[in-house]
Protein backbone atom coordinates (compact mmCIF):
# COMPACT_ATOMS: atom_id res chain seq x y z
CA UNK A 1 0.00 0.00 0.00
CA UNK A 2 1.27 3.49 -0.86
CA UNK A 3 2.37 5.28 2.26
CA UNK A 4 4.13 8.45 3.41
CA UNK A 5 5.61 8.60 6.90
CA UNK A 6 7.13 11.68 8.49
CA UNK A 7 9.39 11.89 11.52
CA UNK A 8 9.68 13.23 14.04
CA UNK A 9 6.09 14.16 14.81
CA UNK A 10 7.29 17.30 16.59
CA UNK A 11 10.65 19.02 16.86
CA UNK A 12 11.66 21.89 19.10
CA UNK A 13 14.87 23.73 18.29
CA UNK A 14 16.69 26.74 19.59
CA UNK A 15 17.09 29.61 17.14
CA UNK A 16 20.18 28.89 15.04
CA UNK A 17 20.17 25.14 15.79
CA UNK A 18 20.19 23.26 12.48
CA UNK A 19 18.36 19.96 12.02
CA UNK A 20 16.56 17.74 9.51
CA UNK A 21 13.05 16.44 9.03
CA UNK A 22 12.49 13.05 7.45
CA UNK A 23 9.89 11.80 4.97
CA UNK A 24 9.96 8.14 3.96
CA UNK A 25 7.68 6.79 1.29
CA UNK A 26 6.57 3.56 -0.30
CA UNK A 27 4.98 4.11 -3.69
CA UNK A 28 5.41 2.23 -6.92
CA UNK A 29 6.95 4.41 -9.59
CA UNK A 30 7.72 7.69 -7.87
CA UNK A 31 6.47 10.63 -9.93
CA UNK A 32 7.81 13.27 -7.61
CA UNK A 33 7.88 14.23 -3.95
CA UNK A 34 6.47 17.50 -2.66
CA UNK A 35 7.10 19.57 0.45
CA UNK A 36 4.60 22.00 1.92
CA UNK A 37 4.62 24.39 4.85
CA UNK A 38 1.47 24.93 6.94
CA UNK A 39 1.03 27.73 9.46
CA UNK A 40 -1.55 27.34 12.25
CA UNK A 41 -5.09 27.98 11.03
CA UNK A 42 -4.05 28.19 7.38
CA UNK A 43 -3.90 25.94 4.37
CA UNK A 44 -0.60 24.35 3.28
CA UNK A 45 1.72 26.37 1.08
CA UNK A 46 3.80 24.67 -1.61
CA UNK A 47 7.59 24.72 -1.15
CA UNK A 48 9.36 22.23 -3.44
CA UNK A 49 9.01 19.38 -5.90
CA UNK A 50 11.79 16.79 -6.20
CA UNK A 51 11.70 14.33 -9.09
CA UNK A 52 14.70 12.02 -8.86
CA UNK A 53 17.18 10.62 -6.36
CA UNK A 54 20.07 12.99 -5.80
CA UNK A 55 18.05 16.09 -6.60
CA UNK A 56 18.20 19.05 -4.20
CA UNK A 57 16.16 22.23 -3.95
CA UNK A 58 16.79 25.25 -1.72
CA UNK A 59 14.75 28.14 -0.44
CA UNK A 60 16.19 30.50 2.13
CA UNK A 61 17.14 28.35 5.15
CA UNK A 62 15.47 25.22 3.77
CA UNK A 63 17.04 22.55 1.60
CA UNK A 64 15.17 19.47 0.42
CA UNK A 65 16.96 16.32 -0.76
CA UNK A 66 15.70 13.05 -2.19
CA UNK A 67 16.93 9.46 -2.15
CA UNK A 68 15.22 6.35 -3.50
CA UNK A 69 13.41 5.71 -0.23
CA UNK A 70 13.18 9.04 1.59
CA UNK A 71 13.47 12.79 1.52
CA UNK A 72 15.00 15.16 4.02
CA UNK A 73 14.15 18.76 4.70
CA UNK A 74 17.24 20.35 6.18
CA UNK A 75 16.81 23.58 8.05
CA UNK A 76 19.96 25.62 8.61
CA UNK A 77 20.20 28.24 11.37
CA UNK A 78 16.42 28.43 11.76
CA UNK A 79 14.58 31.51 12.96
CA UNK A 80 11.32 31.67 14.95
CA UNK A 81 9.42 32.52 11.75
CA UNK A 82 10.34 29.07 10.41
CA UNK A 83 8.01 27.56 13.03
CA UNK A 84 5.26 25.67 11.19
CA UNK A 85 4.11 22.20 10.29
CA UNK A 86 6.01 20.76 7.33
CA UNK A 87 4.19 18.24 5.16
CA UNK A 88 5.54 15.96 2.50
CA UNK A 89 3.43 14.32 -0.18
CA UNK A 90 3.71 12.01 -3.18
CA UNK A 91 1.36 11.46 -6.12
CA UNK A 92 -0.32 8.05 -6.16
CA UNK A 93 -1.84 8.67 -9.59
CA UNK A 94 -2.16 11.52 -12.06
CA UNK A 95 -4.58 13.35 -9.80
CA UNK A 96 -4.31 11.84 -6.30
CA UNK A 97 -1.69 13.00 -3.84
CA UNK A 98 -0.94 11.26 -0.54
CA UNK A 99 0.17 13.48 2.34
CA UNK A 100 2.15 12.55 5.41
CA UNK A 101 0.85 13.65 8.80
CA UNK A 102 3.55 16.30 9.11
CA UNK A 103 6.31 17.44 11.45
CA UNK A 104 5.45 20.28 13.82
CA UNK A 105 8.55 22.46 13.99
CA UNK A 106 8.94 24.99 16.79
CA UNK A 107 11.89 27.40 16.94
CA UNK A 108 12.55 29.11 20.29
CA UNK A 109 14.17 32.56 20.22
Amino acid sequence: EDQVTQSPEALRLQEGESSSLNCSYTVSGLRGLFWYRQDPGKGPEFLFTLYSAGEEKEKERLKATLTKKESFLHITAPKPEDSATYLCAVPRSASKIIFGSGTRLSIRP
Partner: protein
Amino acid sequence: DVKVTQSSRYLVKRTGEKVFLECVQDMDHENMFWYRQDPGLGLRLIYFSYDVKMKEKGDIPEGYSVSREKKERFSLILESASTNQTSMYLCASSKQVANTGELFFGEGSRLTVL
Protein backbone atom coordinates in the same frame (compact mmCIF):
# COMPACT_ATOMS: atom_id res chain seq x y z
CA ASP B 1 -1.92 36.94 -6.56
CA VAL B 2 -3.44 33.50 -6.92
CA LYS B 3 -6.28 32.73 -4.60
CA VAL B 4 -8.48 29.92 -3.35
CA THR B 5 -11.31 31.21 -1.20
CA GLN B 6 -13.39 29.11 1.14
CA SER B 7 -16.64 30.76 2.08
CA SER B 8 -16.77 29.85 5.77
CA ARG B 9 -13.81 29.72 8.15
CA TYR B 10 -15.79 28.33 11.08
CA LEU B 11 -19.11 26.51 11.17
CA VAL B 12 -21.07 24.83 13.93
CA LYS B 13 -23.84 22.46 12.86
CA ARG B 14 -26.09 19.92 14.50
CA THR B 15 -26.18 16.20 13.74
CA GLY B 16 -28.39 15.51 10.75
CA GLU B 17 -28.13 18.97 9.22
CA LYS B 18 -27.17 19.43 5.59
CA VAL B 19 -23.91 21.35 5.24
CA PHE B 20 -22.51 23.17 2.22
CA LEU B 21 -18.86 24.16 2.00
CA GLU B 22 -18.05 26.44 -0.91
CA CYS B 23 -14.72 26.98 -2.61
CA VAL B 24 -13.82 29.41 -5.39
CA GLN B 25 -10.51 29.77 -7.26
CA ASP B 26 -9.48 32.60 -9.53
CA MET B 27 -6.63 30.88 -11.39
CA ASP B 28 -8.60 29.14 -14.14
CA HIS B 29 -7.37 25.77 -12.84
CA GLU B 30 -8.87 22.56 -14.18
CA ASN B 31 -8.34 20.48 -11.04
CA MET B 32 -10.02 21.10 -7.70
CA PHE B 33 -9.87 19.03 -4.53
CA TRP B 34 -11.48 18.65 -1.14
CA TYR B 35 -9.39 17.29 1.73
CA ARG B 36 -10.06 16.89 5.40
CA GLN B 37 -7.30 17.26 7.94
CA ASP B 38 -7.34 15.56 11.33
CA PRO B 39 -4.58 15.39 13.96
CA GLY B 40 -2.30 12.41 13.41
CA LEU B 41 -4.03 11.45 10.14
CA GLY B 42 -2.73 14.15 7.85
CA LEU B 43 -4.70 15.32 4.83
CA ARG B 44 -7.06 12.80 3.32
CA LEU B 45 -8.65 13.28 -0.08
CA ILE B 46 -12.44 13.26 -0.11
CA TYR B 47 -13.22 14.11 -3.75
CA PHE B 48 -11.59 15.79 -6.66
CA SER B 49 -12.76 17.24 -9.94
CA TYR B 50 -10.73 17.52 -13.13
CA ASP B 51 -13.32 19.43 -15.15
CA VAL B 52 -16.75 21.01 -14.91
CA LYS B 53 -19.36 18.44 -13.92
CA MET B 54 -16.63 15.78 -13.61
CA LYS B 55 -15.73 14.27 -10.26
CA GLU B 56 -13.92 11.31 -8.81
CA LYS B 57 -13.94 9.77 -5.38
CA GLY B 58 -10.90 10.16 -3.21
CA ASP B 59 -9.95 7.96 -0.29
CA ILE B 60 -12.81 8.83 2.09
CA PRO B 61 -15.91 9.84 0.06
CA GLU B 62 -18.50 8.20 2.31
CA GLY B 63 -20.97 10.71 3.72
CA TYR B 64 -19.94 13.43 1.24
CA SER B 65 -20.92 14.58 -2.20
CA VAL B 66 -19.60 17.36 -4.43
CA SER B 67 -20.79 19.70 -7.13
CA ARG B 68 -18.86 21.50 -9.83
CA GLU B 69 -21.22 23.46 -12.05
CA LYS B 70 -18.66 26.13 -12.98
CA LYS B 71 -14.91 25.85 -13.45
CA GLU B 72 -14.05 28.20 -10.62
CA ARG B 73 -16.40 26.74 -7.98
CA PHE B 74 -16.27 23.39 -6.18
CA SER B 75 -18.73 22.62 -3.40
CA LEU B 76 -18.59 19.94 -0.75
CA ILE B 77 -21.90 18.72 0.63
CA LEU B 78 -22.56 16.78 3.79
CA GLU B 79 -26.05 15.42 3.28
CA SER B 80 -26.59 14.57 6.94
CA ALA B 81 -23.78 15.77 9.18
CA SER B 82 -22.45 13.46 11.85
CA THR B 83 -20.12 14.11 14.77
CA ASN B 84 -17.31 12.13 13.11
CA GLN B 85 -17.31 14.72 10.34
CA THR B 86 -16.03 17.34 12.75
CA SER B 87 -12.79 18.36 11.09
CA MET B 88 -10.80 20.96 9.16
CA TYR B 89 -11.81 20.95 5.49
CA LEU B 90 -9.35 22.22 2.92
CA CYS B 91 -10.06 23.04 -0.69
CA ALA B 92 -7.25 23.13 -3.24
CA SER B 93 -6.79 23.69 -6.94
CA SER B 94 -4.06 22.96 -9.45
CA LYS B 95 -3.20 23.27 -13.08
CA GLN B 96 -1.16 20.10 -13.49
CA VAL B 97 -0.88 17.98 -10.37
CA ALA B 98 1.11 15.18 -11.94
CA ASN B 99 3.87 17.43 -13.23
CA THR B 100 4.57 19.82 -10.40
CA GLY B 101 2.64 18.78 -7.30
CA GLU B 102 1.81 22.40 -6.74
CA LEU B 103 -1.60 22.60 -5.13
CA PHE B 104 -2.97 25.97 -4.04
CA PHE B 105 -4.95 25.66 -0.82
CA GLY B 106 -7.62 27.79 0.74
CA GLU B 107 -7.42 28.80 4.38
CA GLY B 108 -9.69 25.98 5.49
CA SER B 109 -13.15 25.60 6.99
CA ARG B 110 -13.28 24.28 10.53
CA LEU B 111 -16.54 22.38 10.96
CA THR B 112 -17.88 21.30 14.32
CA VAL B 113 -20.86 18.94 14.37
CA LEU B 114 -22.68 18.76 17.71
